[in-house]
């Protein structure tokens, strides 16, 4: 007995559900005028400290809020809350990354019209977050001077999905004999043209450039002639 088979074309994204939610989020963020920035890195790179300092600095000029993903603890959310801005924890349990649906649920009850900047600290992981769009306008990937200059070459995929690279703990660069030129070359090799910032959240180095980049990107992201806005407009007109 011979079995005849036929080929049925499907052409469906395996993570279609995440993509649909991320697209919905992006449009929603746009409508509400909130610029969304996510931070990804290995555990311990300095996401929470950078975020705490960023929230404190931006609070003067903008209405800011943060979501923080963590497997189990609420420690980071508690640290960020010291900046006196709205903070929510997303406990991911055994899941090693944030997904768009977790972000959507975590925002429940928040009036996004009253927020100018929303920050999302992803779970410490340089692998899995690469595959999940969260609807953010800007994704910052961080690595510290203690992690080695070749970090980008070891995790090219996450660097390739990012919009800006931040080298953290620059105050320790000298003691660990960090080779800044080599580090910059590795970023450039995996993601040509991506801006690179050198920051010490502890000492304050590079914070000015980071804050300026945020303001510039916010303006660009929320300009009415951006692609999303025009799609949205034509949908409204049609």
């Amino acid at each position, binding site marked *: 007995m011979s079995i*005849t088979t036929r*080929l*049925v074309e499907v052409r*469906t*994204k395996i993570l279609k559900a995440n993509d649909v939610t991320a697209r919905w989020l992006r449009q929603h963020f746009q409508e509400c005028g909130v610029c969304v920035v996510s931070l990804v890195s290995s555990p311990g790179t300095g996401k929470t400290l950078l975020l705490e300092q960023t929230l404190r600095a931006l609070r003067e000029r903008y209405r800011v809020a943060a979501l923080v993903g963590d497997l189990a603890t609420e420690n980071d959310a508690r640290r960020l809350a010291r900046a006196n801005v709205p903070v929510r924890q997303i406990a991911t349990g055994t899941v090693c990354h944030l997904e768009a649906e977790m972000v959507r649920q975590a925002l429940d009850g928040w009036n996004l019209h009253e927020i100018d900047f929303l920050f999302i600290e992803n779970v410490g992981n340089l692998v*899995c977050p*690469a*595959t999940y769009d969260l609807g953010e306008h800007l994704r910052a990937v961080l690595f510290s001077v203690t992690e080695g200059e070749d970090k980008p070459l070891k995790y090219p995929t996450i660097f390739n999905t990012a919009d800006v690279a931040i080298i953290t703990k620059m105050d320790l660069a000298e003691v660990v004999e960090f080779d800044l030129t080599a580090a910059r070359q590795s970023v450039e090799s995996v993601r040509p043209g991506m801006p690179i910032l050198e920051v010490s959240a502890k000492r304050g180095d590079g914070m000015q450039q980071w804050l300026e980049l945020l303001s510039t990107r916010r303006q660009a992201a929320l300009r009415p002639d951006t692609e999303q806005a025009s799609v949205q407009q034509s949908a409204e007109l049609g």
Partner: protein
Amino acid sequence: MHELSIALSLVDTACEEAQRHDAHVVALHVRVGALSGVVVDALRGAFELAREGTPLAHANLQIEEVPVLMKCPACGGPRPVRSIQQMCCADCGAPATEIVSGRELELAALEVA
């Protein structure tokens, strides 16, 4: 590892499609880009777990690995990159600022009986 949750989504998607066509799935054709963030071997392993107790229990998983192609400003058309560590044109070395493929993670087709 996120491959298990991806494998579960894959099984769901394939089962839905099979039901829609009222067909028995013999093989799944999946496309995985080199920049998708998914490790092909891990996905194979995860698929073995994810399909247990589903109509896909005996289906064959065929994975096509999609290379990264860039739009090369110097050479013109789509060109392969040297590697995902060296994102530049394999022919002329121009930096890859525009990626045209390599992020795929899709169920391309089902072979059904």
